[in-house]
């Protein structure tokens, strides 16, 4: 099956089985290694992507469901200003992420900040739960997300 979709802003056509997991298509066929292999049940969060601006676990998406959709992975997101807002916020709060969860953590934070530019504690706790890696402490992550939201909103205010 020929899957045509927009990956990180570029139109891409991939010839693959329709029932292949999108995480495998992105990693193996498109060489986007920022998507990690994890639990395969969508709960660990290591394969998170933005599919039509929605945070989804790519291991739960079959290739056919990605047809004509827009996909953003960490490789594409790292070219944006939002990425630097989040990374700066995390650095200021002393968040040190392992290379396994860092892409998913950044993407999930971006997803939340796009929805709620000044998130509540409940919303922050909720988004932290999207990635189950425990390489960084909960309190540091919270502070990091708050710092990121400050940078995020400041940049939005400045246009």
């Amino acid at each position, binding site marked *: 099956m020929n899957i045509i979709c927009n990956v990180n802003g570029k139109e891409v056509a991939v010839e693959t089985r329709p029932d292949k*997991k999108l995480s495998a298509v992105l990693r193996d066929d498109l060489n986007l290694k920022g998507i990690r292999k994890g639990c395969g049940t969508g709960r660990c969060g290591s394969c998170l992507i933005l599919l039509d601006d929605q945070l989804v676990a790519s291991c739960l998406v079959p290739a*056919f*469901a990605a047809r004509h959709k827009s996909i953003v992975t960490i490789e594409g997101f790292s070219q944006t200003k939002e990425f630097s807002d989040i990374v700066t916020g995390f650095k200021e709060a002393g968040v040190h992420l392992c290379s396994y969860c860092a892409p998913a953590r950044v993407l999930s934070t971006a997803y939340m900040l796009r929805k709620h530019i000044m998130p509540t504690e409940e919303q922050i706790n909720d988004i932290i*739960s999207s990635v189950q890696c425990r390489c960084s402490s909960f309190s540091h992550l919270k502070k990091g997300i708050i710092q990121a939201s400050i940078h995020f909103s400041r940049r939005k205010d400045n246009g």
Partner: protein
Amino acid sequence: MAKLNRPPVIYSPTTIQDLLKIYHLNPDALIYAGGTGLLSGAEGDILHIRGSVINIAGVEELKKINRTDRYLELGASVPVSKVIDLGKSIVPEALYIALKQMGPPQIRNMATIGGNICRQANTMDIFPILHLHDCQVELRRFREYRSPRRFLKGSGSKWIPVSRLIDNDGKIIMESGEILTRIRIPNENWTFESYRKIDGPGSPLIFTALARLDKHILTDIRLSYSTVREKLIRNRDLEAEMIGRRVPFSGRDLTLLEGKLEAYFKGTGESSFTTARASALTIQFLEKISEPVDEGRV
């Protein structure tokens, strides 16, 4: 290396009429909406889906949310996260809590309301809530145009109470080629709503309760218990016994009710653990509604 079977045939309808026609012609096809149930058990990179799949994600009509004075109507493909975004003031509180507990954001963005109801394998998290709220579901199927004299639309539609969606064994009763398209939740004010899901040995227990108070008189109460084995346990006699009583309940009343509930549960064949948890959750709820607070939601 495992031998790969033939890749599935994928249908991607964009209208309800196309969907019903395709499903009518392929009644054994898998319906793909959010995919959380279909894919979560898969091992390896290939899902090995046999036969055909109908991807309903492109049917916009199934993603609609409609609100009137009388009810809230959700399309079957509305993602769980969208319903949560409506907020507690619009969504019944028990349903809101259940949806929030359904998993991390990435799962809630994918899982759909209709999918949760139609899946056989799970405990049907939201089914007891919809049942207690007297919700209705719309089932549609392809209907051929036979007589030029009779005015028939392209699809046959019927609304049924959600309670009629499962049989006594907890299996979904839907005819071949029939699809759940909408869920209608009546706008009703309940003074108290509770939803608790407790994992236990072997099987989780879901406790759902609604209560309505009027000047400290319990005017309506609905209690349900769900396990994997028994999709819905509801003792209407016990509910009827409680209606009309003044709250707070006395300690003696609570002990009597506890005893009756335990006796009832023993008859259902549930484990002693489940019986004890169900009984404790019910008493907890009755104590909560007995607390001298404003008659507002908890």
